[in-house]
């Protein structure tokens, strides 16, 4: 029994932060909720710092083998904390002074907590609970706007989440029955020689739940709707943070499965289908947030590449972690631009952005080209490592599919960029920009480039063993 509360310090920071934020918010008048924001920010910073400190610890599990403290956990914590901070940064303008400001922060923190736990746990039971912890704040965040669209998106997110949650529980049950344990360490041995058909049902159940969180096929239906209808910070959050936890969780799970069936092929096929669907569906969108929603679906496809070769090549884990970080900051940069110019929701309305606010246009260029994977942005290095890992793991065909998809994706990103640099229409009113979001956008764009250029320094840090 390794009960080491200190090992969970970042998570504790988040939880305490969530409670404190809510409490602080309930005592503060509506105009002065920046106090709650401060608390939330402080909690995230604290979580980040403690996570960074914990990186130095040796890889091990705590709490009876249910929670891994290793490189992957550290990366998830850091990425989640940083991403959530960015979300708060880009959402300040939209949230400040609203009725639900402090609740939003609390839910963001809880969602972040769910993502970290999900990415760090090595026990199916904790995973199931973490799924709930990750999902429930999302429903709240999606529906927060209370507009008809938001309500619809919340409904769909919720109903899909409930179904896939049940599938996750079903899978957990079956795997438990077959393996006699719920911790991965036990499963790794217990599942040896288990009947493949039953194992497949169990794995599929768990995988389905996690794919829902990640927003991949077949659990992707909620993503574009939520991205379109939810508030911008919520949309940014739910297309970014849950994926981080979910994909690492999938990685950990696939890593312990016995080789009695071709799991990698399944994941590879899902990856291919996901990226193709995301890209093809994004083509014709005219609402930038829906477009971004589909784009995140396609990104999940790329992110599944290293998962498909988990355990077959040592490069898979660092590739995944790096891509996650790169993706998070890039996606958030794009959303930050959207948040900064809330009036420009359609592609055509982006016209003349370069003239109106060149910095934002620059950030958008960096973000979108980053999503494409143009060097020297972070996602480029991510794609490079991911492609390399996939090829090394024997999935060269998937690399080709991914490359072809990348070309296809370029098309809709460029469709967004093209009007940005066109001259604005004469009578077009300038809706103005929101300062915090603009700063967040530029900051994130800088991070994209910085992370891309400093990839050499970051990548070795991500190369650590998985604790089981």
């Amino acid at each position: 029994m390794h009960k080491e509360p200190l090992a969970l310090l970042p998570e504790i920071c988040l939880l305490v932060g969530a409670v404190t934020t809510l409490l602080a918010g309930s005592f503060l008048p509506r105009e002065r909720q920046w106090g709650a924001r401060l608390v939330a920010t402080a909690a995230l910073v604290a979580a980040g710092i403690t996570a960074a400190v914990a990186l130095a610890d040796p890889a091990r599990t705590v709490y009876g083998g249910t929670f891994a403290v290793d490189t992957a956990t550290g990366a998830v914590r850091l990425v989640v904390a940083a991403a959530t901070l960015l979300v708060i940064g880009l959402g300040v303008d939209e949230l400040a002074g609203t009725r639900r400001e402090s609740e939003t922060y609390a839910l963001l923190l809880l969602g972040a907590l769910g993502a970290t736990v999900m990415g760090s746990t090595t026990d199916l039971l904790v995973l199931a609970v973490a799924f709930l912890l990750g999902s429930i704040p999302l429903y709240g965040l999606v529906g927060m706007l209370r507009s008809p669209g938001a309500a619809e998106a919340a409904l769909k997110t919720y109903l899909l989440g409930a179904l896939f949650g049940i599938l996750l529980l079903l899978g957990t049950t079956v795997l438990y029955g077959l393996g006699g344990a719920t911790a991965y360490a036990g499963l790794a041995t217990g599942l040896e020689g288990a009947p493949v058909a039953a194992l497949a049902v169990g794995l599929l159940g768990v995988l389905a739940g996690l794919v829902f969180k990640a927003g991949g096929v077949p659990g992707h239906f909620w993503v574009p709707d939520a991205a379109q209808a939810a508030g911008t910070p919520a949309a940014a959050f739910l297309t970014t943070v849950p994926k981080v936890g979910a994909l690492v969780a999938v990685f950990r799970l696939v890593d312990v499965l016995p080789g009695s069936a071709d799991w990698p092929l399944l994941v590879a096929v899902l990856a291919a289908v996901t990226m193709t669907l995301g890209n093809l569906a994004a083509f014709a969108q005219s609402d930038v947030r829906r477009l971004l929603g589909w784009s995140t679906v396609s990104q999940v496809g790329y992110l599944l590449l290293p998962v498909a070769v988990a355990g077959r090549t040592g490069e898979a884990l660092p590739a995944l972690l790096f891509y996650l970080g790169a993706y998070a900051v890039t996606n958030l940069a794009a959303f930050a631009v959207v948040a900064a110019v809330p009036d420009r929701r359609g592609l055509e309305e982006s016209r003349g952005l370069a003239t109106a606010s060149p910095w934002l246009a620059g950030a958008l260029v960096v973000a979108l080209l980053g999503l494409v994977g143009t060097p020297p942005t972070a996602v480029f290095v991510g794609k490079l490592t991911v492609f390399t890992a996939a090829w090394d793991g024997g999935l060269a065909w998937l690399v080709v599919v991914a490359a072809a998809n990348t070309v296809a994706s370029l098309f809709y990103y460029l469709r967004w960029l093209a009007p940005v640099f066109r001259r604005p229409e004469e009578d077009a009113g300038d809706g103005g920009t929101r300062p915090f979001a603009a700063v967040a956008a530029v900051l994130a764009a800088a991070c994209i480039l910085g992370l891309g250029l400093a990839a050499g320094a970051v990548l070795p840090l991500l190369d650590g063993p998985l604790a089981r």
Partner: protein
Amino acid sequence: MTLQTVLLVAAALFCVGLYGAISQQVVVMVMMGLELMLNGVILAAGAFWWFLSPAPDGQVLLLVVITAMTVEMAMGFAVATLLHRSRGSDMTDMATDLSR
């Protein structure tokens, strides 16, 4: 009462629930379908615990399932309320603005 029979019953419950979840239009009824699916999972979990591996993990698993059921149900009510208030309807068919 063997593992297979119990599992068959669980599967039956699960599939009845699935039918409900897919076929019902009213949100609350869809939720009932989902509940029924969970019901099947509970039964299966019990069976697995009893027939295959009676470790304490199984009991905790049951606890988790029950918790999940409760929590999801609460969220379901909240979402249904939200839908009802903002769109004046509690039917999933009426909420199809977001598509394509």
